[in-house]
């Protein structure tokens, strides 16, 4: 276990070193860039808030990915489930005026979870019933979600004005902000709760036991009287609901309305984060903070040093690629003589 985490950390370091090489080659100072990035990520309360704010949605999608993964399913469509959840929350947010705040928020969150879950149900059902591979269907449904919501904010739900967005949701549906003026919202509490809950459900409950058994060996699970299809559907629905909640959090806490294209690819980030976090809810949370720090730190870095923000995406990609093949890191370690780590 310690070794596994060491390999993860090494992969991250390798990515940073590679990033430093790219920076140097293109005429920037890696030290300057990285120090600015660090300050931007953890420099003060505001930047910590920003880091957490950026980490929040990707923790949701990472949990979504993870929950399905533990049940043997590859849900790479968290992006679509998040967007659909966001849209549902926005719709509930703007259509119920005059509700008391807690009820309104709860209703909007519920709508997000239900919509996300529904978006997860479709590929789950198709997998269970027709054997359609969920990697493809979830990915395809993500695009459907993107275009569908884009249509909605461009036509039926479009707010007057120039931006493809809905009207703002009323105060009563807004999640309170934390560490103002950062964009961090109470959605963070929700995600921390979900991290704990996911870990608990997977480890300690009958449901988690059955899902993990299904994920590890569906034939044995079936033989042990576990309803594999039901489990699969349930897993993807819960996975989708978690992603949907992430979308709700963004809408109710950060943007306060649905804006076309508000997600810069949280779904893909979630996959990466789940992986970098060693496929463990707590680990994923820390990995999400790393990615959030990269994002928020990257913004300061680009302002102060003029290094293009895209180096951040490059770094993320490198982290993923290095983490994707632990065997590669191990081989590298072996070659460099660090045998005990390579084994």
């Amino acid at each position, binding site marked *: 276990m310690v070794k596994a985490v060491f390999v993860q950390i090494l992969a991250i370091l390798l990515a940073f070193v590679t990033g430093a090489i790219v920076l140097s080659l293109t005429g920037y100072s890696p030290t300057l860039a990285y120090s600015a990035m660090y300050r931007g990520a953890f420099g003060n309360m505001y930047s910590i808030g920003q880091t957490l704010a950026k980490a929040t949605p990707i923790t949701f999608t990472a949990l979504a990915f993870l929950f399905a993964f533990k049940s043997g399913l590859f849900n790479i469509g968290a992006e679509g489930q998040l967007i659909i959840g966001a849209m549902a929350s926005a719709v509930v947010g703007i259509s119920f005026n005059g509700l008391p705040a807690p009820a309104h928020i709860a209703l909007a969150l519920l709508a997000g979870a239900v919509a996300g879950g529904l978006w997860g149900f479709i590929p789950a059902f198709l997998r269970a019933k027709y054997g359609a591979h969920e990697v493809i269907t979830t990915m395809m449904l993500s695009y459907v979600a993107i275009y569908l919501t884009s249509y909605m904010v461009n036509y039926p739900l479009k707010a007057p004005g120039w931006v493809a967005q809905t009207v703002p949701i009323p105060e009563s549906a807004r999640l309170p902000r934390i560490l103002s003026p950062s964009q961090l919202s109470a959605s963070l509490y929700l995600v921390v709760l979900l991290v704990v809950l996911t870990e608990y459900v997977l480890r300690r409950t009958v449901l988690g036991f059955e899902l993990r058994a299904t994920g590890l060996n569906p034939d*044995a699970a079936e033989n042990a009287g*576990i309803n594999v299809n039901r489990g699969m559907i349930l897993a993807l629905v819960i996975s989708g609901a978690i992603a949907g909640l992430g979308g709700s959090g963004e809408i109710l806490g950060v943007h306060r309305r649905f804006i076309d294209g508000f997600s810069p690819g949280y779904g893909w980030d979630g996959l990466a984060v789940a992986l970098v976090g060693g496929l463990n809810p707590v680990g994923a949370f820390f990995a999400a903070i790393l990615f959030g720090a990269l994002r928020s730190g990257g913004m300061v870095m680009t302002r102060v040093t003029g290094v293009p923000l895209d180096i951040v995406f490059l770094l993320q990609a490198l982290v993923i690629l290095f983490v994707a093949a632990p065997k590669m890191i191990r081989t590298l370690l072996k070659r460099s003589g660090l045998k005990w780590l390579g084994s």
Partner: protein
Amino acid sequence: MVSAVVMRGVTKTFPGVVANDHVDFSAETGEIHGLLGENGAGKTVLMSILYGLYRFDEGAIIIDGEEVEVDSPSTAMRLGIGMVHQHFMLVPSLTVAENIILGREPIKNGVFLDTERMLRDVGEFCDKYRLDVDLEAPVHTLSVGVQQRVEILKALYRGADVLILDEPTAVLTPQEVDELFKAIRALREEGKTVIFISHKLREVLAICDRVTVLKKGRVVGTVDASETDQGRLAEMMVGREVVYTFDKDYCEAGEPVLVVEGLEALDDRNLQALRGVELEVCASEILGIAGVEGNGQTELIETLMGLRKPTAGKILLNDSEITTLPPGERIRAGISHVPEDRHKRGIVSDFSVMENLILGSHRNTEFTQWGQVLDLAKASSYSDKLIEDYSIDTPSKKTLARNLSGGNQQRLVVAREFSREPKLIIAAQPTRGLDVGATEYVRRKLLEMRDQGCAVLLLSADLDEIWAISDRIAVIYEGRIVATRDPKETSEQELGLLMAGGRDD
């Protein structure tokens, strides 16, 4: 004269296991050489090394007098070594001819596959060895016996002078075995060397010229088949006299527990696998089902467990119908199942021993709080008890099941299934891949369960096992129970005939 194959001092270790320990082996040109040993004795590993699938840790391979390095199957083929695996290595969607020429394709115009030459060449080959198959049929449409023929042709086409057959008879009917033996002898006439891997004494004596016996990775000895007999070989194989008849007390059978009426089901390819199975297993009785693999045994178990939907018929457990119940309900109704492939259906290898022990009973109120949360404390003490009672050799109950030896994994499955207080136990190949000690243990446990009043349905490919512990023997052939016999009143010849589809009169 130079030996066709010599392997000298071959050693191969896998993590935790020495599969071959300084093995010396040689086969002469034009002989049929038996390689005999129990499951896990290292026969297949040794031959996989010869065929280039594994690399030995130390040792030497000498082919026709020259030391060679066999680093891949293609090298082996170049050296004239061919192998027919237990699990066929055929690509299902390709045709027979394509499978045979795969890797040695005839080429025309520099780049294209020469289909005509392919069919012509392969056709000539079939004629030469008098092995008849439809060259243009996709392999997945062929029967097992024909597929095996294709495998042999494949090896010969590649110019094999040494042909390794890994347990070739396991999936064949006695009649098909006869055909195979004819073909093998024909190969010997052609001057080929055949290495025949088996754990069946009778077969080895029937076909082989010489026999090399392996035990726990070591060579026990090589003997001429004409100068030995079953008893002596068996002693070499297991290191002591083998008890052919199991000590068992007679037990009075009780009321029928499981009743199956006219059961029909389809296999994975939607072909009829069960064609009206009629079956009755009583309390305090072991009913053994004998049959050649692939006659519906797997489908029967799956249908009984609720893993496969029957297309017709009824299943009754203690007089109540369970035909449409899902697997979970059946487990709760009192059916336990020791699956034929423990890695596929028996254990979750990345689960801990404890998790595996409660798998299937995890929903019992005994292990849960408020119905949905696992009570780890109770599961833990329950596991301790089972580990103790069934002598499962594991460092701790938190050890992953994958780290246990095969025998202990099987003990784990048996412990879990037998301690649920079942009314019916379905045991499929319960001793496959186990050493003698573990085998005896499992058989004893089955008898114990029977004595406690449990109904046991035993399916095994090993006729000896069926013979040893069954109170009644039923024979399955092409999805039907064709006969039921009392083991005391039948002979192996009769059963063999029945298993091969001979009529019951």
